[in-house]
């Protein structure tokens, strides 16, 4: 916080952001290869790099081009910077189960030197990757030919000093640490501490604390596994470190609660410092109440004062100082409340949507179905629904707001609830830390939108 944002706060009509299509990445055809399904999207701390992970275990990193001074009306495009296979499918012989290579989360480390570092995780193993550039190479060895073959020493008549000559940029990714064998259940979150030395990884029942340098040991800081698995009624769904306080973290549960823990209190943080839970609305009670209250994502604001949670139908903003209810609640797709049984039937009710803050914490964004995504301006209380579709893919075309008609007469340009495509879901979105640039992932495509620059 601190940098001025153009058109960030929609205090009046003139200040509203107009979102334009910028780019789309991925295959064009409708036949989606399973391995290409995008499973995570994350900007790095400067926003220059954008990483995606997919179901096939690959990581693709895009880099923003340096701004072109002549083309002042558009920001740099994102182009492929590096692609590598992060995780491979594995087989757990003890349990006779396959371990999916799908990348569940990517988190960037802040840049300390020329190289970039990120953590990527699948269900069981976390890896620290170093991404470095090479644009020079030494030439003129004495004992080796240019192609690497060794020279016959007897043919060496003079000595020379090898020099660096420029070469085509090569981006290399190498695994520097592998953090394995610490999770019995599926990892759903990783979060880097503000000390930049430790990080946490959370699975369904446990949270572990790691040191980035140490791979053979981790500390268990939360364990909600009951002694008798038959008594299991609640799982951990997401966890995150506080952005400023290195001893504070939160984790959310399938029952709609968020617990804030302080690692200074005890080694095993089974007793929370704060419990955030909104009392249930009795008029909305149904057999699906618990399922839709399950929190799929939790994110601290950049300031650290608030946190946002996403459950099936809504986004809630919590003030860390108030535990008994959220300070703001935004309905993402309330029209689905009357369709819960069908959504339970086709399993859509278990979809885990993520959410994100903009750089100044004034706007929050989350995805929905039919390739729609929603933004809520916390100051103006206005919201907008936009669609990620190849139909709008002319650069600098302003996106038209979309509207879903819940019932009754459908107006022109509205889409009725029953026409929504529930196969087209936007689960992963990311907002550039400084600019109004957003990355929105459909099933196998990555859309980049930015605000209209005049």
């Amino acid at each position, binding site marked *: 916080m601190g940098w001025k944002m153009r058109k960030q706060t929609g205090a009046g009509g003139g200040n509203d952001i107009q979102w334009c299509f910028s780019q789309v990445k991925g295959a064009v055809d409708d036949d989606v290869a399973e391995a290409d399904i995008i499973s995570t999207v994350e900007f790095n701390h400067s926003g220059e790099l954008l990483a995606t992970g997919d179901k096939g275990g690959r990581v693709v990193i895009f880099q923003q081009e340096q701004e072109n001074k002549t083309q002042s009306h558009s920001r740099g495009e994102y182009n492929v910077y590096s692609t590598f296979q992060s995780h491979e499918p594995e087989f757990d012989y003890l*349990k006779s189960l396959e371990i999916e290579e799908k990348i569940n989360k990517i988190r960037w480390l802040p840049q300390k030197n020329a190289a970039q570092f990120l953590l990527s995780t699948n269900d069981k193993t976390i890896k620290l990757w170093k991404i470095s550039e090479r644009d020079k190479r030494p030439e003129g060895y004495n004992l080796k030919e240019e192609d690497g073959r060794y020279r016959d020493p007897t043919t060496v008549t003079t000595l020379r000093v090898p020099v660096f000559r420029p070469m085509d940029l090569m981006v290399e990714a190498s695994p520097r640490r592998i953090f394995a064998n610490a999770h019995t259940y599926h990892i759903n979150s990783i979060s880097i501490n503000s000390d930049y030395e430790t990080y946490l990884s959370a699975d369904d029942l446990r949270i572990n604390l790691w040191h980035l340098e140490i791979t053979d040991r981790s500390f268990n800081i939360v364990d909600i596994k009951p002694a008798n698995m038959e008594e299991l009624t609640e799982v951990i769904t997401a966890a995150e470190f506080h952005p400023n306080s290195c001893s504070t973290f939160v984790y959310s549960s399938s029952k709609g609660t968020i617990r804030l823990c302080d690692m200074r209190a005890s080694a095993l943080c089974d007793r929370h410092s704060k419990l955030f839970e909104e009392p249930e609305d009795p008029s909305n009670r*149904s057999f699906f109440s618990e399922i839709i209250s399950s929190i799929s994502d939790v994110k601290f604001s950049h300031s650290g004062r608030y946190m946002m949670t996403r459950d099936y139908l809504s986004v809630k903003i919590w003030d860390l100082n108030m535990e008994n209810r959220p300070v703001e609640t935004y309905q993402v797709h309330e029209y689905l409340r009357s369709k819960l049984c*069908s959504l339970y*039937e086709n399993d859509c009710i278990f979809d885990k949507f993520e959410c994100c803050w903009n750089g100044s914490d004034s706007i929050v964004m989350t995805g929905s179905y039919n390739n729609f995504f929603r933004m809520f301006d916390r100051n103006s209380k206005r919201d907008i629904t936009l669609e990620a579709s190849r139909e709008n893919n002319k650069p600098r075309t302003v996106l038209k707001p979309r509207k879903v008609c819940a019932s009754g007469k459908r107006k022109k340009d509205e889409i009725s609830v029953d026409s929504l495509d529930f196969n087209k879901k936007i689960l992963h979105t990311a907002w550039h830390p400084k600019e109004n640039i957003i990355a929105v992932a459909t099933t196998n495509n990555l859309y980049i939108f930015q605000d209209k620059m005049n």
Partner: protein
Amino acid sequence: MGEEEGLHQTQFLDTMFVRGLKRKCFDGEEDIEGTLAGIKAIPSYNLQRQSLLDMSLVKLQLCHMLVEPNLCRSVLIANTVRQIQEEMTQDGTWQMINTQSTGQASLDRLVSTDILCRSSRDQAEGKHVPAYGTFNKDFESDQAQDSSETMSTAPSVQAPRNLQSNAWEMENPQENKGNFQKSLDQIFETLENKSPNSVEDLFSEVDNSYYDLDTMLTGMMSNTKMGHCDSLETFSTPTNTASNSNCKSDLNDLDHIVEILVES
């Protein structure tokens, strides 16, 4: 046109579950007429709850069969099942025989049979749905004789088959509940202790017809346009024509038995 019907049905399924515990008290003639007239229109709350229970148990089964079950999803479904079970225990529908007037009782059974029919098709195709209420058990024991070789023997969810074969005896609701609870617990135990043996057991008795159901259900899940949520419809798609006719003949048998029971 199938879509229309499916949409129609799910709309009503959805309406019933929209708000709160808006239960229709089963309080007499008007309700019967209501359900009679609109058997396809507005099913009773009990029927809806029952179908939700069916659906949930199938889901639990299915996710148990998958390579690595999603624990969060399993827990949420299991909690839903427990919730329904608790409510059913509280309002007494967990009991074996409906103690209300015979007219209502027979209607109840007729309506439930519809659901059972689909359940029994599951069984014929190798899916195993545990007995948990009214006369499911009885139906099961019929089916057991007919298609024992196609019954999947998933050890995780045991039917209370150890109960008396004479299903018309007044069953102790506690026992029913206990067996059911045991089934849930077994699911979690097996989720927890996935030893190679148990996995082998799971797959040893599965025959091809199971995969048909699986494909059907997968097809249903991937074809998630609204209005296509016709899992009940899907179950009734005859992949096994033999089971179809089995069901019909059993239905007649059941009617016969009911007639005898109510001494009409």
